[in-house]
């Protein structure tokens, strides 16, 4: 605690204020998994460039599709509500097979058995497919969540990104577990 030894009231007050802000801004204890993954999806959308024809207008919304258990889309919606990605609002949709064409980002939650079918629908469009099951990137998914020591990690399949005409920023690539195909 010695670093908080006072060197002036104003400074102590500023440090205390920062500590308070930090304490209330940083959630403590274990976080809900899908809330955290939704925040990751938000960041993925920030650091990925879609081809020009993917959006109707510069301020057209980014469609974030969620396939999976009920409740996951609600968790994602709660997390990204009211946020903008590169100036675009985010629209969260829950989808089943065959509805993935209009999606910019498709998150397949725990979809071991559904992944292949859903990916079929996304094949020829520029969808950023994100999964969370082992082997997802081998199926052609672009990003896959893994968990290590109860913390979220992700791996990126650059080949799949290229096929979908998506440009992934080098910053995102550098943070991925094993970037590459």
């Amino acid at each position: 605690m010695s670093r908080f030894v006072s060197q002036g009231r104003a400074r102590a007050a500023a440090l205390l204020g920062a500590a308070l802000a930090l304490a209330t801004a940083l959630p403590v204890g274990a976080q809900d998994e899908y809330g955290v993954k939704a925040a990751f999806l938000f960041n993925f959308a920030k650091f990925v460039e879609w081809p020009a024809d993917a959006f109707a207008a510069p301020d057209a919304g980014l469609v974030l599709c969620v396939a999976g258990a009920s409740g996951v889309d609600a968790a994602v919606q709660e997390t990204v509500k009211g946020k903008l990605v590169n100036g675009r609002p985010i629209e969260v949709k829950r989808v089943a097979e065959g509805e993935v064409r209009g999606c910019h980002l498709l998150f397949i939650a725990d979809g071991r058995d559904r992944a292949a079918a859903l990916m079929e629908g996304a094949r020829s469009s520029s969808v950023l497919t994100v999964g969370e099951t082992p082997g997802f990137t081998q199926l052609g998914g672009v990003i896959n969540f893994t968990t290590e020591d109860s913390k979220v990690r992700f791996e990126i399949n650059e080949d799949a990104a290229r096929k979908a005409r998506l440009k992934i920023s080098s910053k995102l690539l550098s943070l991925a577990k094993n970037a590459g195909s």
Partner: protein
Amino acid sequence: MHSFHRGLVFVAALALAAPAARAADPAQPPSALTDMSIEDLMGLEITSVSKREEKLEGAPAAVFVITNEDIRRSGWTTIPDALRMVPGLDVAKIDGNKWAISARGFNEQFANKLLVLIDGRSVYTPLFSGVYWDIQDVVLEDVERIEVIRGPGATLWGANAVNGVINIITKKAKDTQGLLASALYGNEEEGTGVLRYGAQLGESTWLRVYGKYFNRDAQVTRDNRKGDDAWDQGRGGFRMDSDLTDSDSVTLQGDLYYGHSGQFNTEISSFFPLARNNFEDDVEVRGGNLLGRWGHRFSETAGTSLQMYYDRTDRLGRTIREARDTFDLDFQNDFALTDWNSVTWGTGYRVTRDRTHGTPTSAFLVPDTRTGQLVNAFLQNESVVVKDLLRFIVGSKFEWNNYTGFEIQPSARAVLTPFESHTFWGAVSRAVRTPSRADTNVVLSLGASSTTCPVQIPFPPFVMMLPCTTVQQIDATNSFGSEALWAYELGWRWNPVRSFSVDVAAYYNDYQNLRTLEPVANPIDASGFPVILAPIVKFSNKLDGQTYGAELTTSWSPIDRWKLIGNYSYFRANMDPDLDSFDPTTGPGIEKGSPTHQASLRSLVDLPHGFEFDTGVYWVDHIEAGVVDTDISNYWTLNVRLGWHVTDNLELSVVGQNAQEAQHDEFGGGLFSAGTDVERSVFGQVTVRY
């Protein structure tokens, strides 16, 4: 073993005290997460509650999951106490190291209708078909979750999962990396220390090793004397997980333990002249286990697993000593036939050998050593009958054991999801409890009295009254058969928003051939004069009965940093002895031995600066319980915990357990041990993680 009950006093009052703890600051919405950078997000620890909830939402059974967070914030320090958070479970602490735990009634020290597994290893003892709770311990911080299924889990888990299955699952080695050091100390908790270290060994192999030691104070007797039931134990072990290939995973884990579980014994040391012995029995417990599991996924929809384990338990008390070796092999395969139909099947073999040593005047087994073998197979089919609406699961377990031969346990379940966020399920199942070693082989003295007996003298011919001792004794019988159950269950789950959920389960259980004590054909044996065995009784199956009840659990987050969890359970039993039964006490004992109502309310509050304020109130209705019939009045207990995440690495907490009363009684005595009262316990804990 056997409960005696008489008399009836009925008091029922529901007293719930909801702790009022509100967060001082307005709660931060989860959208605060999007303000964090990716690097910061990668530093957050997550819980897979939603994932589990999704799997559980569709489960056609009364499932309750205790999470790692639930345990950490509950203020409980043992697995048996943590089970109090489950609706429908009877948890009663008998003395400082013994619990009577059962699901949906039939609670007693040697409750025999519950199957308990730790990481797939069965920990119930075939000696009495129950669990020695004092030797079931893990590093609680490394528990992934405890799944409790009330109702017959027969199809997948087999015989003895009659009223429920408890599955304690520890975290994978991958999720317990680095150093964990924890120290706990208080007035009843006289020191618990945990040290665990996890490391990555190769690209896809992880290992953890741990050591744990605890020392717990004795409780107090009803008349306020110090008990003899202190409890100490040291254990250590490891777990190694390896993802050999993309589709293969291997696990190897093992533990060793040694300790003492004290108790106060009253035993008959000699029949004639009749003498009793009261002494403190510091029962020595030691043992270990080694388990290996290999899982292989052929594809997204097919997989197989093979599991093998060895378990050794030694229990050395002054009245009974037991050493048991168990070896178990299990194989399981699941595959999808079509995209709406999947099959799971498996087979297993278990051999268990015991060597026991008893006391002729108290209890002993005939024969004193025995080997039991068990072969089982199961088959289950899951079909989506109407897409997104109706699922059927039909299956059966087939068992052969060398006590009762062949047993079949079929089960049929259905899941209906007509509306978004609602799940309805129903099940009909048959379950069987096969005889334990004690059911068929025990010779047990129930009581003895000094008296005088008439003896005929031939010359001169008259009758003389001579001192003798009469002993009531349970004699070994090999004719005890399996108990059987037909269970009918219904359930409803509603999860309209993430912050609120309700889970209700109801059941009607129809039991046959429950265990009773019946006199043998010639119940008086005077051949050992001056010791007269009278009456001689044996275990038989002359009781039928029905139980019914319901369990409710609800979870609500009124604001983001506050979570409330409420449970309620209701239980009734109507026992129906056979016409030729001479046992007047077992039936009423079951009817009164489990509480009619139970309720609990837990509140978890996240405060600013890393503080946590957690409270739990538990209320249990009155019962008559224990080997010697005891009236236990209804009681409520309160746990209060204040936790502080000082930094990312350091966590402090102060806990008051059973805080509102200096002592209270939960159960009568055990078979060879006096019961004691649970005391108020206050302790502090320091946990460091690197």
